[in-house]
């Protein structure tokens, strides 16, 4: 069971362009497809965030392009409040689903999980193709919401009913736009469920000889745990989405209580509960945070070890803490609901369970520092992003300790403190994981190197930029600034926040501009970058055994046997400072992965 039958997933290399690059079953092509989808989506999401920032600081400005694109949402090029909310909803949805869920798992996971365990492909290549194309359809359906009558939905990425359930009567964008949103998310859930099954099966069934579970590289563990989370979480969101759609189109009342009156009109529903949606949504939504960030943790662990030339500190603790975070992640959804009207007793239970997540998180942070300690650190762009991932994880994680206590959450709930917190930990930290992975694996994926100087410049600007955006948001929260306000002029106490908003907007402009450096570097390297050798980082894992880029069947039919753990760096008595996982057993040192 544990060891692979070698040619299990092998299939002949297709020759026509369509089967090779479009409807490909090759996990590597699918990985790149996911990555490019995320790359496209992240620039759309970022453009939306620029509009959000402009509207908050220069409310009422006319933007010509907007009038051309959205004559309804921005008449005369001026954003209406409902257009602002549509931007915000789509920004959140695109970033969470189409970027943070796809790039780390669908992108890097697809590409490198099979290679790192010595498999020829994923366990179910056709299913894999289906996962990607469903995700693609999901993105198209989501983007279509911009262009339908009423525009994109305005109920936020959390789509709380009754706002999201009542249709156009509750506001613009809540008609067809909201329907498309739900359909898009449902398709995305199905795609993610199929993907999760594939990842789990591949890890359990297709490992090469000698690749015991405890010799798997930490990114593989991270993708594996993430897949388990996805399998358990997306099914719940799918069910919730279907119920919400039924409430909207079939007259059911899962989330709509009786006696509602919207704009003097009586709503003919009875017996539903708005809180039911919140429970279902956050039962998915909290594990989703870890779906976004666990792969980043895996990649960070990998990169810290490689560029410190050291074994990862506490390998087993790193594995167990991922399971700890994953398991606890399913027991804490109620901390999003302290102010929702749910039982105040359960708030205390959820609070205490949430505090427990600090423990595996602290283990990870501690071990990352332990890995750097006594190392020989080279600051390649991948390493800079990985180091900063640790820093962001700490900043973002500590902010969580104010929100997981119901007492302190009373004031901070639904303020910008929350916005700053989750952007740091879920958004930016995960994105830094993606950048780290990109600078680390680009040469393997495309056979060429990205430019190091541009990478370093990109890193500096992004690093200062994101802190300048999201740290000040915590201060906005302290002032009591509620989230999702299209305009600030209606509330007196928000006047004092103007300088902070201005600062954040300027920082956002700089950060966004810096991403074009990345895009340029990426595209330049794709065609003009210096050719990459097999193992440019002198790393030990299996992907560095094979050519860059790898052939269709990865290992060219070669029979591999793994003899070592993935982090044998600077082994005493060895001439080179790394021992490949497939190197023959050493004489002097036992290098099974000890903790």
């Amino acid at each position, binding site marked *: 069971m544990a060891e692979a039958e070698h040619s299990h997933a092998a299939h002949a290399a297709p020759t026509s362009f369509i089967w090779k690059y479009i409807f490909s079953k090759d996990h590597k092509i699918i990985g790149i497809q996911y990555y490019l989808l995320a790359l496209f989506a992240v620039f759309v999401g970022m453009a939306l965030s620029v509009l959000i920032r402009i509207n908050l600081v220069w409310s009422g400005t006319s933007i010509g392009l907007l009038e051309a694109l959205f004559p309804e949402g921005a008449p005369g090029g001026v954003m209406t409040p409902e257009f602002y909310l549509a931007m915000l909803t789509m920004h959140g949805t695109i970033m969470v689903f189409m970027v943070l869920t796809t790039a780390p798992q669908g992108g890097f996971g697809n590409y490198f999980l099979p290679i790192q365990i010595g498999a020829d492909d994923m366990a179910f290549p056709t299913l894999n193709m289906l996962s990607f194309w469903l995700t693609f359809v999901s993105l198209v359906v989501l983007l279509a919401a911009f262009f339908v009558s009423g525009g994109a939905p305005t109920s936020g990425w959390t789509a709380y009913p009754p706002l999201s359930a009542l249709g156009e009567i509750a506001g613009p964008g809540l008609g067809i736009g909201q329907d498309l949103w739900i359909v898009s998310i449902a398709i995305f859930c199905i795609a993610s469920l199929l993907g999760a099954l594939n990842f789990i099966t591949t890890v359990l069934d297709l490992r090469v000889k000698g690749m015991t579970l405890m010799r798997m590289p930490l990114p593989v563990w991270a993708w594996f745990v993430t897949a388990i989370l996805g399998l358990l979480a997306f099914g719940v969101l799918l069910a919730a989405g279907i119920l919400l759609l039924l409430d909207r189109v079939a007259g059911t009342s899962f989330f709509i209580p009786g006696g509602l009156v919207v704009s003097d009109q009586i709503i003919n529903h009875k017996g539903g509960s708005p809180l039911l949606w919140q429970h279902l949504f956050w039962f998915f939504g909290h594990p989703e945070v870890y779906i976004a960030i666990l792969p980043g943790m895996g990649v960070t662990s990998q990169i810290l070890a490689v560029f410190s030339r050291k074994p990862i500190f506490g390998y087993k603790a790193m594995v167990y803490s991922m399971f700890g975070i994953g398991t606890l992640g399913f027991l804490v959804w109620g901390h999003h609901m302290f102010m929702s009207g749910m039982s105040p007793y359960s708030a205390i239970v959820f609070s205490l369970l949430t505090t427990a997540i600090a423990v595996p998180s602290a283990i990870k942070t501690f071990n990352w520092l332990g890995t750097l300690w006594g190392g020989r650190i080279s600051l390649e762009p991948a390493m800079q992003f990985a180091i900063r991932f640790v820093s962001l994880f700490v900043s973002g994680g500590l902010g969580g300790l104010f929100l997981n*206590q119901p007492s302190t959450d009373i004031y901070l709930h639904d303020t910008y403190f929350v916005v700053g917190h989750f952007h740091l930990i879920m958004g930016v930290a995960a994105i830094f994981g993606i950048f780290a992975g990109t600078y680390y694996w680009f040469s393997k994926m495309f056979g060429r190197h990205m430019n190091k100087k541009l990478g370093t410049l990109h890193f500096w600007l992004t690093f200062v930029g994101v802190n300048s955006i999201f740290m000040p948001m915590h201060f906005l929260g302290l002032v009591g600034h509620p989230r999702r306000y299209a305009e600030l002029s209606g509330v007196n106490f928000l006047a004092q926040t103007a300088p902070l908003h201005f600062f954040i907007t300027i920082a956002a402009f700089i950060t966004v501009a810096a991403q074009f450096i990345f895009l340029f570097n990426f595209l330049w390297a794709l065609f003009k970058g210096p050719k990459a050798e097999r193992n440019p980082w002198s790393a030990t894992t299996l992907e560095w055994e094979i050519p860059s880029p790898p052939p269709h069947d990865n290992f060219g039919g070669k029979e591999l046997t793994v003899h070592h753990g993935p982090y044998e760096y600077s082994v005493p008595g060895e001439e080179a400072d790394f021992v490949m996982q497939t190197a023959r057993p050493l004489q002097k040192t036992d290098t099974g992965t000890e903790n």
Partner: protein
Amino acid sequence: MVVAILIWLITIFTSYHFLMRTWWFPDSASAHGHLLDSQFETTLIVTGVIFILVQIALGYLVWKYRQKPSSGKAIYTHGNHRLEIASIVVTTIVFYLMVLPGQSIWADLYINAPAQDSIQIEVTGQQFAWNMRYPGPDGKFGRTLPELIDDSSGNPLGLDFEDPAAEDDLVLPIMALPVERPIELLLRSKDVTHSFFVRELRIKQDTVPGLTIPLRFTPTQTGTFEIVCAELCGLGHHRMRSFLEVMSDADYRAWLEEMAE
């Protein structure tokens, strides 16, 4: 090198603004407010110390162990069980010691029974306004019927005047409260979920259609405070604002009488 310095600079900048309180809560104006504030401050001190220590350590390690021509081989170690367990024990103790006291503040506010003499006021959210209902001299809220709701004719809650208890009910867009008296707000919503948030009173509670959620507190300072909506409720979310004035008991009675006319 630069990475280390940048991490330190950002740590210093962030810590400075937290310490200087450049942007901060308004002064508390309710009995429980200072308890929340001190719980916040405890949390800030604990997390602040960890934040600064870890970021400094991270910067230090990167600076100290950066690759130099003189660097020898890296240390070969797969970890240390004792250190691992120590970090688990310390984290658990520190964080639970920090989090546990805050739970009793929450329990006092949300779980323990209301004082007998609390003043009840019903608050009903709607897109995009707050309706405050005082029960009037009879102390009873009259019957409401959804089909009677009519914003334009001034019956936003659908009061049924066939019910004698409804006759003296007072429905207003603003709120007044007497200082130093326990208050119980009964929070409801007509349409979608809203959230009743008053910064100075340190209160926030979602108003959920279909539920009546009690919110208990005692104002301790007089003054006029803004009521805002903290849960996305539609295109006018940002302008769903009202005012709340905390006044002396005598002023409060006079205000009620004035409003009843």
